[in-house]
Every structure is written in C-alpha cells, then in structure tokens.
C-alpha cells in the first residue's frame, strides 16, 4: 500500500509536479509553444496589413494571410498534444490522491473513525479531491498558460515596438496579476464559507425531512423553519457579498486601460512616423488575444485557492496523529493463541471522555471456554470486545495472552486469531459468497458451503434465486436481521479464529430463528474460546463463566450457579429475562 507522507497540505498539492516529471516537462514545453502559436496570427495580421498598404494585394500578402491558417493548424496540433499530456497527469493525480487518501484513512485506528463523520470523509474523498484536480486543470494550467502568453507577448512587443512599450506592458501585467491575486484572496474565504453553508443547508434539510415524523409529532415545524430560514438567509447574504466583490474586478479595468494607453502611444508614434500602422495593429491584436485568454483567469485563481484549501484539509486527516500509535514490532512473538487471557487492571477511556469506559478490569479468561457477558447499555460490554480485537489499546493496565502483552503484538496479528460478529451487522453490497469469504477471498466453494451450513445460513441461501451468488445490499435482496446475523457468523467461521467475539445483545427474533442461531453458535464455539455478549437464557446457562458489567466495572464473574447464589444484580437480570418466566412455568431452572 502506498503510504506517502507530505510535509503539509501545500506539499500534498504541489506533489503534482513530482509525479510524472518527464511528461510534465513535455507538456510545459508544449504550453509555451502553444502560447507562441496563439500570438502568431495577431502578428501576421499586422504584417499582412503593412504589406497591403505598401504593395497592395500581393502574393506576399496572400502568403501571410495563408500563414494565419497555417499558424492555426500548428496551434491546434501543439495545443492538443500539450493539453492531452497535461490532462493525463492531472487525472492521474486525482486518481492517485484518492487512492492515497483512502489507504491512509483506512489505516487509521478506530479512534479516528469514531471522531470523524464518514459522510464528511466521503465528500473529502470524492468532491474535494475532484476540486483539487480542478485546481490543477483547468486552474493551474490556465494560469501558467496565461503567464507564458504574457511573457511571450512582452518579448514580442519588445521586438516590434521597442523597450518603452514592452516596459509599459510589463508594468500593466504586474499590476494585473497583483490585483487578480488580491481579489482571489479576498473572495476565497467567502467562497469557502458559501460552500460550507451550502453543505450545512443540505444536511439540515435532509435531517428535517428524514425525521419529518418526529418533527411533526413534536410540533417542531416552526423551529425547523426558523433554523432553515436563518441558514438560507445566510447563504443568500454570502452570495450577494460574493457577487458584489466579484463585480468591480480591477484587473479587467487595468487590462482595458493598458490597451487604451498602448493604443494612444501607438497613435502618437505612427503620426510621428516611428511606427507603422501594421505594428499598431499587431500590438492591439496581441492585447485583444490576451484579453480573451485572461477572461477565465479569476475563475482559475479560485480553483487554485480552493484546491490548496482542500489539500490542507485532506492533509490534516491523512496525517492524523494517533494518540496511541501501534508499537513498531520487529519480531512477531510466538504466541499460543489457544492459551488463557489475562486482564490486569485494564482501564480504557474513549478520546475526550473523562469517565473510563472500562475501569480497572482484572480477570482471567480460561482457554477454550465459553464466556457470556451481560450488562446494561454503556456498561462496557462492547468496549471489552473491542479491546480484545485491539481496535483500541488500553491507557492503563495490560492484556496478556499466553503471557505476552497485547501491545507487543501487531494489530494485524491479533486479528488473524480473533474475530468478531458485531451487534449491528455490516454486510458489504455484493454477493453472499463475497460476504462470507470476506476474510479469505481464496476460500473454496466447499469451505464456503461448510461455513454457511455451520452458521445455519445455507437453509435460507438455498431458497434464494441465485443461491450463494445472490446480490445483497442496496441494489440487492433485503435480508432479515436473523439472516444477516447468520451470514456474519458464517463469515466469522470461515475466518476460523482461535478466539471468537460475538455481540448478540439486542435481538428480537422469533423462536425458530433463535433456535437456528443457537445451533450456529454451538457449532462456532466448539473447540475455541468464545466470548458472547448476550441476554439469552440458554447462552447464560451454557457459559463456563459470566461477566457482569456495570458502569465500566466488573460487578461479578462466575458461572450461573455461583452468580444466582451470590449476586443480587444477576438475580434481578435473570428474573427479567423474557424466557425465564416461561421456563419457570415449565418447572423451574435453578
């Protein structure tokens, strides 16, 4: 994976120049030639007119006129080649930055993903990177082309009209660029604010309409209207401000006045006899050509500015500093993953939180046992599982497996041996086969079927029209909660972990599905350590040990018999389990 690093956002943006230097050089040379070719017709027209005034409709005049077409063709070929190679580099830049961005973001720990809104990251990865490319093409390209044209024009004027005229033009263009940059700097923050406000407005509107039932039944309409009106007004005000700043665009005036002044000086020199009419026409022709090519310049500056701002934002996300970076491990320690696990005074805080999500956890998990976890929302159940998967590292205390500290084991190594079936099942859009074989894309048909069968998923997969190749997700078949869960279990079985974590804390399933799930779990927990967050009676009864979490602490740890005897909290929870009453009615459990 490409994990390039950059010093800052600017470096990220200007890395463009280092990506394909040879091609870039070639396209820059072509751009210079293209600038020359753009100006040739204006020169030729002037010479032709001089020829016409002196020698009439001569063959030289006809050749000069034809030269304009020739110059046009040369211009076409050169410009095409130049644009083509520049475009190629620019689109490659967009592609590569997008890839680098994704790889980098993906490699960040979950702490990063907790802090960052995934839809914002998405819009960075798509829109903002596209805008970065726009900053290169047309932005940077337009500016460079314009600069080349200005320089070549000044040289040409120097050649045909002498030093004074060339200096005047130079002065004019220095002013032109100065004010153009000044203007861009002034308008850029408003542009950014406009873009942000537009984003906010969209988000707000989306939120209101997605939650329209809630808005209505809580009579939130007026409040939402006022909120929306405020932002809509803000957007409109910003738009007016932007338009008004853009209105009196000084660089345009400078260019117009420069043309007028050069026109005046030329008039004077022609009457003095120091300049021909043709030369005057050349000068005016050059300026008009330049006026045309400068028309888009303010837009180009905005593109460039936006691109650099985006690059800075992107860079910040890409170069996020992990508060708990992975230790560089040189030798992967030899670990018997079937060994027991020890938690030693483990304390963990989520970033920004003052209260620990897990506080001072000390326990020993026997090897190949079945562990059940129970506790209320926010009690630390899920966090406990996440630590075991090394999605986070504890700030205090140690987790040891086979006597080796977790921090000495690379995350990828941990995840080779530990798998999790999460509470809210995430399946990728694609076929069922792809989802089951996610952990091992090379799995054979037989292995996939075996996993699906063990997870009790084959039963419903077979009924689907395309079987394992049925597409699920947004554009595919909708699966029920129980079916999704069984697919996730199949996925975990195929990964064949030594330690399996399962978050099964909230599920309202009918009894048949539950039966199937239980069978799947039994298959899964055979011959490996399984840790299950649950509220199913059967799982609690079957467990070798039950951990009760409360407010991030372990309230008690033992098997069902022990806990029912000594732990009041457990007794209370147990009584509340939906199955309990039924089971009690059938003759009691204890």
């Amino acid at each position: 994976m490409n994990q390039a690093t950059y010093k800052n956002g600017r470096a990220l943006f200007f890395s463009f120049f280092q990506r394909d230097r040879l091609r870039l050089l070639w396209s820059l040379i072509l751009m210079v030639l293209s600038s020359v070719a753009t100006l040739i017709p204006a020169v030729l027209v002037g010479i032709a007119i001089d020829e016409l005034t002196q020698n009439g409709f001569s063959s030289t005049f006809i050749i000069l006129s034809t030269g304009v077409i020739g110059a046009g063709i040369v211009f076409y070929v050169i410009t095409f080649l130049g644009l083509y190679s520049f475009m190629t580099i620019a689109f490659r830049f967009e592609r590569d930055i997008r890839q680098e961005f994704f790889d980098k973001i993906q490699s960040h720990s979950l702490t990063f993903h907790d802090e960052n809104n995934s839809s914002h990251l998405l819009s960075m990865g798509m829109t903002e990177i596209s805008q970065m490319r726009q900053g290169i093409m047309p932005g940077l390209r337009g500016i460079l082309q314009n600069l080349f044209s200005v320089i070549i024009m000044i040289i040409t004027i120097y050649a045909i009209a002498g030093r004074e005229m060339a200096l005047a033009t130079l002065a004019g263009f220095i002013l032109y660029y100065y004010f153009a940059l000044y203007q861009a700097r002034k308008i850029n923050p408003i542009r950014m604010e406009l873009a942000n406000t537009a984003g906010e407005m969209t988000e707000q509107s989306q939120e209101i309409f997605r939650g329209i039932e809630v808005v209505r039944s809580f009579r939130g309409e007026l409040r939402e209207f006022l909120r929306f009106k405020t932002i809509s007004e803000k957007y409109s005000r910003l738009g007016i401000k932007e338009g008004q700043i853009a209105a009196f665009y000084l660089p345009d005036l400078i260019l117009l006045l420069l043309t007028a002044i050069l026109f005046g000086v030329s008039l004077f020199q022609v009457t003095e006899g120091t300049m021909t009419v043709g030369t005057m026409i050349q000068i005016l022709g050059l300026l008009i050509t330049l006026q045309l090519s400068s028309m888009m310049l303010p837009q180009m500056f905005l593109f460039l500015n936006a691109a650099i701002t985006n690059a800075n934002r992107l860079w910040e996300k890409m170069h996020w500093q992990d508060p708990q970076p992975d230790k560089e491990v040189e030798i992967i320690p030899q670990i018997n993953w079937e060994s027991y696990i020890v938690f030693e005074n483990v304390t963990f805080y989520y970033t920004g939180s003052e209260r620990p999500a897990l506080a001072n956890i000390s326990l020993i998990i026997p090897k190949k046992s079945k562990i059940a976890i129970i506790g209320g929302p926010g009690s630390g159940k899920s966090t406990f599982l996440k630590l075991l998967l090394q999605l986070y590292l504890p700030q205090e205390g140690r987790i040891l497996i086979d006597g080796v500290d977790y921090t000495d084991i690379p995350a990828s190594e941990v995840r080779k041996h530990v798998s999790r079936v999460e509470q809210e099942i995430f399946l990728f859009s694609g076929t069922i086969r792809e989802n089951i074989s996610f952990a091992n894309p090379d799995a054979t048909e037989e292995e996939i079927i075996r996993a699906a069968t063990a997870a009790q998923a084959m039963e419903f997969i077979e009924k689907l029209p395309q079987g394992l190749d049925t597409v699920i997700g947004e554009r595919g078949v909708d699966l029920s909660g129980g079916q999704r869960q069984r697919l996730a279990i199949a996925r975990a079985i195929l990964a064949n972990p030594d330690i399996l974590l399962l978050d099964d804390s909230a599920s309202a399933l009918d009894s048949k599905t539950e039966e199937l799930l239980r069978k799947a779990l039994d298959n899964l927990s055979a011959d490996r350590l399984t840790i299950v967050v649950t509220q199913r009676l059967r799982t609690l009864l079957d467990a070798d040990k039950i951990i009760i979490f409360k407010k991030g602490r372990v309230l008690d740890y033992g098997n069902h018999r022990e806990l029912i005897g000594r732990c009041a909290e457990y007794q209370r929870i147990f009584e509340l389990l939906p199955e309990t009453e039924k089971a009690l009615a059938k003759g009691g459990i204890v």
Partner: protein
Amino acid sequence: MSRSRHGGWLADKKRTRSSKVLLKIFWSYLQPYKFHLAFVAVLTLVYTLAVTYQPIIVQNAIDRLLGGSTFQSLLFLLVLYMGLSLLSWVFQSLITWYMAIVQNELVHTLRIDTFNKLVDADMSYHGKVQSGNVTSRVVNDTQEITAGLGVFTNSLTNVLVAFATLFVLFDISLWFGLVSLLALPTSAIITKVISGRGRAQMLKVRSSLGKVSGALAENLSGVSIAKSFNQEERTSRQIRKLNDETYGYFKQLGTLFTMIFPSISLIGMIMIAGILYIGGYLNQQGLVSVGSIYLGTVMVRRFLSPIMALANNFTNLQASLAALDRIVDVLHMEASIKALQSMNKLVLTKGEIVFEGVYFKYQAREEMNVSSLKRRPDSLAEEERLKFKDLRKQFLEEKRYYVLENVNITFLGGKKTALIGHTGAGKTTITKLLLRFYDPLEGRILIDGQDLKEVSLDSLYENISLVTQEPYLFAGTIMDNIKYGKPDASDDEVYEICRHLGADEFIEALPNGFQTVLQESGKSLSAGQRQMITIARTMLKNPKILVLDEATSRLDAYSESLVQLAQQKLFEGRTTIVIAHRLSTIRDVDQIVVLDKGKVVEVGDHETLMKLKGKYYELYNTYYAHQGLENIAIAS
C-alpha cells in the same frame, strides 16, 4: 454568474408543463425585482453598444492615420476609446452587482416557499419520496432555477453582441458577413458532438465515479470489519480497480474535449484568413479600407464566442426550466390533511380512542399520479377527471388491497392496549392514523368523541406521542434531542427522566455527557441507546396518550424492564397503546387486540385469548414461546 451550478447538458430536462406556463409562474416571482431587471436590461444594451463601437474607433483611426492625420486630430478618438473602456467596465460591474442581489434573494424566497410546502406536505408524499430527493428540491432545484436567470441575462448579452457584430460585418461588406456566418455550422457541429458523444462519455464518467463513491462510502462505514478481518489490502485493491476504471473514462472524455476546444480557435483563424483574402482583394478594388479589414478580423472572432456560448446557454436554460417544473409541482401541491389553527382544540377527558369502521390503504405510485393531477385542476382535462373517478371507484371495490379493513377498536381511556399481529397486519398503520400522518379513507377516529379531522394538529400532538422502532435523532447535543418536544424544560427535568429510565448511566459515560454532540444521527451510539434517548424525549414531553411501536425492541431485557418501571410510574392511568414483542409487556396490558391482514380478529386479555386457542394462541407460540427451554429446565 460565475457561480452557476448547472448540470448543463447532462441535467435532467424532462418536464410536464410548457415553457410558457413555467415562465409565467417564474415571472410572478420576479415581480419584486422588476426595476432591477429593467435596469440590468438597459445596462446590457449600453454595454453592448460600447464594446461594439470600440473596434470601430480603431478602424477609424487606422484609416485616418493612413490618410495622414495628425495626432491632435486623432486625440478625440483616443479619448472616446478610453471613455468607452471605462464605461463598459463600470456597466459590466453593475450588471454583476445587481444580478447578484436579484439571484440570491430570489433563490432564498424560492427555497423558503419550497421548504414550507414540503414540511407541510402529506406524509404520503414523504413516504413516497426519499429525503434526499426532497432535499434536492429545496437546495438544488431552486439554485438551478436562479442560475437559469443568470444564463438568461447572459444569453441576452450574447444575442445582442452577436447581432451588433454581425451588423457591423455586413455593413463593411456582404462578403465579410458571409464569412462570419461560418460560425453557425461550426457551432452546430461542436454542440452536436458535445451533446452526443460528449454526453455519452460524461455519463460513463459519472456512473464510474458513482461506483468509486459507493465503494468509498461502504468501506468507510465498514472500516471496522475490514480491520477485524485484516482485509485492508483487499478493500484498497477494490478502490484501486474502480479508480483506475474512472481514470480511463476521464481520459476518454478529456481527449474529446481536448480535441474540441482548440478547434474553436482554429475556426477563428480560418475566418480571419478569409477576411484577409477577401478584404485584401476588395481593398485593391477600392471597396473597403485597410481599417475596415482590421475591423473585420476583430469582429469575426468576436462573433464566434457568443454563438458558441448561446448553444450551451440553451441547454442550461432547458435544465432550469425542468427544475422549475419540479418546483412548481411542489408549490402547487395541496395538502389533503388540512389542519387549521382555527380548528377546535382537542379536549381530553377520559382519553378514550375509538376507531369506527376505518378503511385505509397506502397510495401506490399510479394513484399518486392521478391524485397529483387532481391537485392541478387547471391542467386537467375533463377526460382525465373521469378517468380518475373510475380509478377511485375501482380501487374502492378492491377491498383486498386495504391495509386496514373495517377496523373497529375502542382503546379504553386510561388503560393499556396491546396490538398484536404478524408483520403487515396493520399495527403500525393504526399508530400512524392515530397521529394523523394519514387520514382514513372511510370511517372515523374519535378521541373522547371528537373526530380527529375536526381538531387542530397542535392540540392533537400536545396530547399524543409516538415512539417508534426506528429511533430518529437530530444532529445536536443529547440534551437538545431529549428536549425536542419541550424546549423550555429545565436540565434537571431531563436528568430526572433519564434516571428513571436508567439512561443516565450510558449518557454520563459519553465524552461530554448530556452535552455530547451526536453526529450522523447518533452513529456512535448503539441502537438501544438511541432508542433510550427517544423514549426519554417522549417521556419529557409527558403526553396524555402514549403510543409505543416496538419502542423497546432494541433494548436489552434489563433496560427494558427499567423503562417499563418508569413508564408505569410516570404514565399510570393514561391511555397507552403498545406494539411489542416481549411477553412480559403484553401480559401486563388490560386489553389485547389481535390483527390479521388488516382486520381485527380477536379482542380480550391474555387468559381469555389463550383459552380461545385462535390467532393469539398461534402467535404466542411462534413469537413468545421458546422451544428447547423444557430441555434446559430438566437438564439444569
């Protein structure tokens, strides 16, 4: 005008109204800006004259120079030239200035009107149209319309410039005029290529980019899965593949544009050469002056760009009209659920709710179209009106499509009633009718004898609250979310409620406790935690009638029991309607209503219904009984 947000020749151009009708509607929105626009029109006219006249001054000067004039005699031309430069700049700036005001104020007005219409639209509309599309009406379409106004004034300038330029060229010589007309077929061909092959390739780019975006979105939200299974390399490869594909399409599209763009300049050069040939020849005949040849070369180039722009403007205007059409759809929408402030207030005494012969059916797509025709009698021919009547009759006859069919229920005042039935039996629909998200097609719903249709919505929602299975939270702090239905509640009230519910534990464990800002509708919370917050929100509002639609389905048993305790304490003696899957919830209720395929099949309490051995007994055994427990009981 620089900030046009046009989809251009890619945008959706489908529409149902004629341009005339649409422009008439649009004109009504432009009324407040009549004078601004008139002023802009005048400015545009003067601006066009100024920029057209400038090259004529140069031509004049050239001819005088060749005739041997002195500098002093040319001075006035120079002054005039400078004056016109200044004038054109000032006028151009003023146009931008005023258009910025008109466009931005206009878009604000349109946005607010559209927003209001949509907030008040029937729930059937929101049930049918995705929130993303609704937002697109409010944000994108309104912007597109005003961008259209900019394009319109831009086109106006272009047309004026094109005509003025053409006039000057024909004025010099018929042949000059004819050469410049070369611009027309050129622009036609280029437009054709762009809207044909260019469009096709752009669509490919778009769909390919869409795939990248989809994969990126999925892999960003599923990042913990990729990490858990050590599959980061794989997702990276997936993105790379799509990314490469997109690059390929971009390159194709870019090549096309790279070929087109310089060709415009090439055509310009050919036209200039043409002017030179003809001009040189005519000059020899003494028919045109050297100055006029210069003028011809300038004008012929200037003619090309507005013509090119106009072709593009035309497609953009079409897109704006299509957007306007969609907005007019919204603006002309008439909500069928009328709830005027002037209506009677709902007065609760016992809190008894009666469903009397209620029929209901969700409107399918076709029927929506028919009824949207109904909303626009102006555009509805008598024939269509009859067709609509027929449809309605036919659909009233087809009773098997009803979601609710002749439902008669009395929800006892101050008591708890449970609704039971398979998925699709109509349980949720009953709650939606009760909140008047929809009106029944036939029959009445009465609360303490008052028809729901005759009381104001405000008073209805003051008394009744719904907690649904899908917890919906707003961006904002948890505190704000809980206070959503009662903004003036004190923080202490919120703490109190949360303590009762047992929600304080996890909220306080969050980074900023109650002040934690929820992102992405609370993605960082578990479904159960989100549900807790919605329950707290409703409890704080303290309604007299409570409707719980699987409101605790995502909670663990322990939390659920806490919620139930809190509910018993806080809602003692209030009318409560529950849809629930847990036995413990149902056994406690005063009355159970069993629904099957939209009909009420059994009513009674648990014991009575079990004895019946009917639908309830069957449901009970499927959903609430747990096979295999007997074995455990014996084994342990």
